[in-house]
Structure formats: structure tokens, C-alpha cells
């Protein structure tokens, strides 16, 4: 049966289970958009391709499926770049399809021609330039397979306009042939034995749980391992939710803005079990003094992450869930009561400084606000964020018990991620409550997507933490540049009017006693809402490990002068 290249693309995309695509049409992808009308695809017209990329990313993170975004050639494709890099850094499976000028025009600087495969080469797991219709079936099949398998990541397909229009025989490829791509599942047996020996000897072990736990869907086996060996679990920013925050063995977040007792536990441990995490500089502090007495076992699917930042004693390369399933029967039951008590004592000491114990001083602090949203939503909402102070506070105070509800740009640190990723997540879970926690800076980067939310009636609750500053940069300037504020004072539009102009009901909150009612109001509305919170302008995120300092050299929140 002969079909056009565009039809073949949709035939394959539909077979991959895609139901929703976020995109923007243009000259070079019009045949794809025309063919789309005949297929069961819901297309979301975004307002900027970056928003579309983040929506597909948010959809993928929330659903565990592959997301899909599209753009036309030239600027359409370059606008996707930030979103592609965001997905790459956080290993999120998204397939991007861009239109390209006709094959015979390539290299001639044709209208809206940009070397998209060249630009995206270092920020995709793999990419393709398709010049003929008969390549499309195989390429789409491979792209989805590569995006979701192994260490997931974004794959881009750049399809020349002629290839979209030309006809050829459509045969769906039942298998993929990729001799150079064979993700590993099981770790080596002798390495497992070495790991078991280290676990047996450990008195002060700690698990570092990363995004890989979620990517591998290994939450349950992680719980088995942690409980069986009585090993406490610290989490990276992206690993939050993989291990329930309310569990006795949970230590919460580690790293630059991690909990004091968690970082102390890492530094004082004698065995680190790194599960699907990559020892990013934001979680290690300076490597010279990182966990100096700890042996290290690293379970990781990507061999290039092993020994990259931290040399480990036992690398277990494989799929985390598979490796842990192999490992759990080999280890004995242990108890580490003394070690756990030591950590609890550190926690008690640090908690005395917690802002949660502050008496009401009429100011609006983001930590209080996040805790209030947590209470109102029962800790069950899907939370998305931009990047900066509000992101760290949300990570600290929205304690998650369930996986895939925490959508934040970790590796790339992309501002403007919050609103579009929330819209994407809504398409994955229309029955769930979704909150986008945004900063005043980040929100303005992708605020145009409010209209997209209205057009789709996406039920997302936006909470803007407006401190009239680029807060995190301001905090660094306060701490490390002697309070010389440079380019951080930010004038914002009237967010309430802005939202209302988009057709979104909005409110402003300036006092603590107004919080609960505003949250209840937002939750009572079906459809997008915006609440602007005028928060304390110069609060800082604590604890903080200054860049380049040792992990246990944390700046802690000063004790409140008037309070206790």
C-alpha cells in the first residue's frame, strides 16, 4: 500500500502509542500537519516551540511514556533547542520532529534552512536527517526505541519536505536493527559479589537515590533493598518521590540545598550505594573531601557516568531495577540502629533552626507557602517548577510520597519550565491536581503558554512566587559578592491583570492569613488559575553548601532574633 512520507510518519507514531503532540506548524512541516488530520492525534498548538518542548517533556516525566513535540524548519527548530537540552540533561524520553527544506535545497541557505541535526547533535541521544520517504518508517521506529530504552533521552528527526510528500510502499518494521545500540540489563556476577561483600562490612551505609530509580521504575525494589538492609535513603533533586518522604529511612534531599543531616550522613558514611545518579557537582560539593571514608557502589545504566566525577569501588552497570532484583536476594538482613540514631540526632539539631518553627511575623515566606499547598493538596499533587529559590524550597517542603509527581529542570536548570511542563503533565493525568510553582523571572519566560492552557482548558494551578528579584542570583550576590546587586531587581507586569487578559482567573496574596483561602479558591476552579504571592523579598534558601565548598560546610539559617 503506497502512502506519503507524512502519512507513514503518523502510521508509525500512532503505533508507538502517541496520543498527544505539542507543536507549531510552518512552511516546512505543512504536509505533516495536513496528514495529521486523518489520525487519532490530539495536537496542542503552543505559543512558542520552547513551550511545546517543555510540555512534551512534562508529559513524558509524568506519564513515563515518550513525549512528542514538533516544529518547522529554521527558527521553529532552533526555538526547540532549550527544551531539547533540558530533556537531554535530565534523561527524559522525547521525540522531536522538525520539518526541513527539500533535500535538493540543503546546503544552499534556502528560506528557513538551519542545520538542525548539526545544532542538536550534542544535545540529543541521537538524531536523524531524513531525505527520502522510504527512510521514515525505520527512522521513527528507531527514534522511539532509542528515546525510551537504556538511559532515556531526546531523539530528533529532521524530515525534508520532499520526503513528507513523496509516496512509497509502507511496511511497518517489526524490529529495529541497531548493531551499535544494545543497552545492558544485568550487571556482571563477580561485581555483584564484590558489592555484597562491601554491604556486609558496612556499618554506616547510605543510599543515594537518583532519577534513574524513576526511569527504571525501580521504586518497589529500592524499598525492598532499603528495608532489608536498613539503609537510609537520601535523594537527589530529580530522585525525589522515588522513595516515600514519610518513610523512617528517608533522609530527603542531599546536596547544595539538601538537608543538613543528609549531607552529614553522606560525609560520615562508610558505604555509598549510588542508585541511578551521577554525582553531579550540585550534590557532591568539592570532590576533594567528598565522603572521604566511604566505599562506593554505583548502579548505573550508562557506563560513561561510572567513574566520571567520583571514582567508585564497585561499578554495577545495568538497568537499575534488574540489577537490584539480582542483588536483593544476595544480601542479608542488617540493622544499623546506631547509625540511624546518629543521623536522627543531627536532624533534631538542624530542625531547631527550621523556618517552620518561626512565629507569624506577617511576612510571606515561600517555605510556609509550600507547606500550606502541601497540606491543602494532601501532598498528592503533581508539582512543577521553574528554576531558582522557589524550586529549592518546593523540593525541600513539598514532601513527596509517590513517584513521577515532581517535574523540575535539574541538570539544565531551565527557567520557564514550570508552566509548560505542568500543561504537558495535565495531558498525562487529567484527573490529578497539578501545581506549577513559578518565580517572577521564570514565569515571564514562558508566560505566553497561559493562552495554550486556556485553549486546552488545562487544569493547572500556577503559583507565582514574586519577590521582585531574580532571587537565587540575588542570594549569591548577597553571600558571595558583598551584596552588590547587579541586574537582579526585576519589574514585573501586574500578574493578575496579565492572567486575566489571557482569560485566566487570578488573585494576589500578600499576607500569610490569605494563603489558605486563595489555595482553596484555586482548587475550586476547573481550569487554569494564577495566584501571585508577594513573598518576602530577601529571604535566602538554607541550608546552602557554597559552590566549591565541602558538603558538610553548610550555611545554615540564622536563628530568628525576635522568635526563639
Amino acid at each position, binding site marked *: 500500500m503506497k502512502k506519503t512520507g507524512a502519512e507513514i510518519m503518523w502510521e508509525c507514531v500512532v503505533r508507538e502509542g502517541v496520543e498527544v503532540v505539542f507543536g507549531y506548524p510552518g512552511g516546512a512541516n505543512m504536509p505533516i500537519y495536513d496528514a495529521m488530520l486523518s489520525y487519532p492525534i490530539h495536537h496542542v498548538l503552543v505559543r512558542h516551540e520552547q513551550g511545546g518542548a517543555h510540555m512534551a517533556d512534562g508529559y513524558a516525566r509524568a506519564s513515563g511514556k515518550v513525549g512528542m513535540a514538533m516544529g518547522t524548519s529554521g527558527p521553529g527548530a532552533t526555538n526547540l533547542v532549550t527544551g531539547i537540552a533540558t530533556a537531554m540533561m535530565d534523561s527524559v524520553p522525547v521525540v522531536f520532529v522538525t520539518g526541513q527544506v527539500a533535500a535538493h535545497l540543503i546546503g544552499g541557505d534556502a528560506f528557513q534552512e538551519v542545520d538542525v*541535526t*548539526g545544532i542538536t*547533535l*550534542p544535545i540529543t*541521544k*541521537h538524531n536523524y*536527517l531524513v531525505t527520502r520517504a522510504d527512510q521514515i518508517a525505520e527512522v521513527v521506529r528507531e527514534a522511539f526505541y*532509542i528515546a525510551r530504552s537504556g538511559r532515556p533521552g531526546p531523539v530528533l528527526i529532521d524530515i525534508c519536505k520532499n520526503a513528507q510528500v513523496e509516496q512509497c510502499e509502507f511496511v511497518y518494521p517489526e524490529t529495529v536493527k*541497531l*548493531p*551499535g*545500540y*544494545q*543497552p*545492558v540489563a544485568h*550487571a*556482571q556476577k563477580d*561485581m555483584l559479589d*564484590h558489592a555484597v561483600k562491601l554491604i556486609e562490612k558496612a556499618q554506616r551505609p547510605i543510599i543515594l537515590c537518583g532519577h534513574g530509580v524513576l526511569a527504571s521504575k525501580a521504586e518497589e525494589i529500592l524499598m525492598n533493598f532499603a528495608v532489608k538492609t536498613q539503609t537510609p535513603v537520601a535523594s537527589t533533586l530529580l530522585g525525589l518521590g522515588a522513595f516515600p518522604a514519610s518513610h523512617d529511612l528517608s533522609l530527603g534531599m542531599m546536596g547544595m540545598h539538601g538537608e543538613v543531616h543528609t549531607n552529614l550522613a553522606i560525609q560520615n558514611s562508610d558505604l555509598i550505594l549510588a542508585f541511578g545518579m551521577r554525582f553531579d557537582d550540585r550534590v557532591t560539593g568539592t*570532590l576533594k573531601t567528598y565522603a572521604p571514608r566511604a*566505599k*562506593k557502589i554505583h548502579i548505573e545504566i*550508562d*557506563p*560513561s557516568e*561510572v*567513574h*566520571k566525577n*567520583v*571514582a*567508585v*569501588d*564497585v*561499578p*554495577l*552497570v*545495568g538497568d537499575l531495577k534488574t540489577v537490584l532484583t539480582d542483588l536483593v536476594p544476595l544480601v542479608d538482613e542488617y540493622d544499623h540502629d546506631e547509625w540511624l540514631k546518629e543521623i536522627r540526632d543531627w536532624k533534631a539539631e538542624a530542625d531547631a533552626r527550621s523556618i517552620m518553627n518561626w512565629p507569624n511575623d506577617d511576612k510571606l515566606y515561600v517555605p510556609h507557602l509550600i507547606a500550606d499547598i502541601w497540606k491543602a493538596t494532601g501532598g498528592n499533587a503533581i508539582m512543577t517548577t521553574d528554576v531558582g529559590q522557589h524550586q529549592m524550597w518546593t523540593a525541600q517542603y513539598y514532601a513527596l510520597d509517590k513517584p513521577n509527581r515532581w517535574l523540575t529542570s535539574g541538570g539544565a536548570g531551565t527557567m520557564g519550565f514550570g508552566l509548560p511542563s505542568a500543561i504537558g503533565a495535565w495531558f498525562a493525568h487529567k484527573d490529578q491536581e497539578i501545581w506549577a510553582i513559578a518565580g517572577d523571572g521564570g514565569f515571564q519566560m514562558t508566560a505566553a503558554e497561559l493562552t495554550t492552557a486556556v485553549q486546552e482548558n488545562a487544569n493547572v494551578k500556577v503559583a507565582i512566587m514574586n519577590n521582585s528579584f531574580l532571587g537565587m542570583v540575588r542570594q549569591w550576590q548577597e553571600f558571595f559578592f558583598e551584596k552588590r546587586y547587579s541586574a537582579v531587581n526585576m519589574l514585573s507586569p501586574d500578574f493578575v491583570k496579565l492572567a486575566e487578559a489571557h482569560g485566566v482567573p487570578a488573585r494576589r496574596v500578600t499576607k500569610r492569613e490569605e494563603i489558605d483561602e486563595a489555595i482553596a479558591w484555586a482548587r475550586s476552579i476547573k481550569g487554569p488559575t494564577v495566584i501571585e504571592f508577594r513573598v518576602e523579598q530577601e529571604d535566602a534558601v538554607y541550608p546552602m553548601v557554597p559552590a566549591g565548598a565541602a558538603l558538610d560546610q553548610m550555611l545554615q539559617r540564622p536563628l530568628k532574633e525576635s522568635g526563639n
Partner: protein
Amino acid sequence: MLYTFIALVENKPGVLNRVASLFRRRNFNIESLAVGRTEKPDISRMTVVVDCPNGDYDAHKIEANLYKLVNVIDVQDVTHQPSVTRDLALIKVMVGPEKRAEVNSLAEIFRARIVDVAADSVIVEITGTEDKIEGMIELLRPTGIIEMVRTGQVSMTRGVNDGVRRVQQGAVGNRYENEYEDMAEMAP
């Protein structure tokens, strides 16, 4: 120290660019890179010589990163393996009829060949290891080298032994051969 890797890659457009781009992105310095076909039409073979200031630590990094490229099928490190290594150079030397015999006898000593003779110049073709070619260049330099081109190093292990594979496609994950206990000291 210079390490030599052999990579088998799919013979597809853009693969050389992917490899070169990877080395640039990960901040590795390529000394030499030679690509050519193999006995299988769908597979190309690269010999890459890379500076590895941190020794095996860098070598592991390079191998593991090469495997992240979907088109890379196999990577071996042949640095410490008995192997045959060749580089080919064409050297055009400024030489008139009166000194041609001198260049000719020099070429004979190096088992090089004169492959072109013009009124005022000859082209010398030499094949061999890097050292041998460097030696000949040094001796020809006083005569006057007009231009020179080299292919870059190609390598093949002797006998049936392969090079070292720290990382393996699909089968084994990652290790330094029996050295895992020393790893903690190897970080840069």
C-alpha cells in the same frame, strides 16, 4: 600519554562528524584520526590516537562515551597490545637532477619510494611507524620540503589477540580489568 583506539562504526553519513564532535564536546585532544572501509561494506573502521593525560582513567572515559554514539559498534584500546601500526606520507622535495641520487639513496635506506619526478622536485612516498616517518622528514628537511601530506595512523593487533575492551557493547558493563580496588586512587 598517547592512546590508540580502534572503533568499528556503521558506514552511514555523518558518523565521522559524530565521533569528532564527541571528542570536542568532552574535551579530548585528537592526535590523529584515520577512517576507512573494512571487509564489510556496512562497517567503517577508525583508528584514533588521543592524548590521555590521566592514563587509563581517560581511556575508560573515551571508550564509554564512544559507545553512547548509536552508530559505534565496537571499541578497543590497542595501546598496550602488540600491533602493527602504519602511517603513510607523501613528501615533495625540492631537488634538481644533481642531487636526485642523494634523495634516492636516502629513500632506499628508509624503504621509501620515489613516486614522481619533475624537473625541480620529486615526491617521496614513505610508509611506516610515526617514528620512522619523522626520521625521514628530519633528514629531508635540509634539502627543502615543498609540501607534505600524511594519512594519520592506522593500527591492527598482531595474531588473534584483540585490544582491551573496558566497556563492551551489550554484554559487559564496565570495569578496569581486575583493578577495581585501585579505582579510588585513580580519580583526577
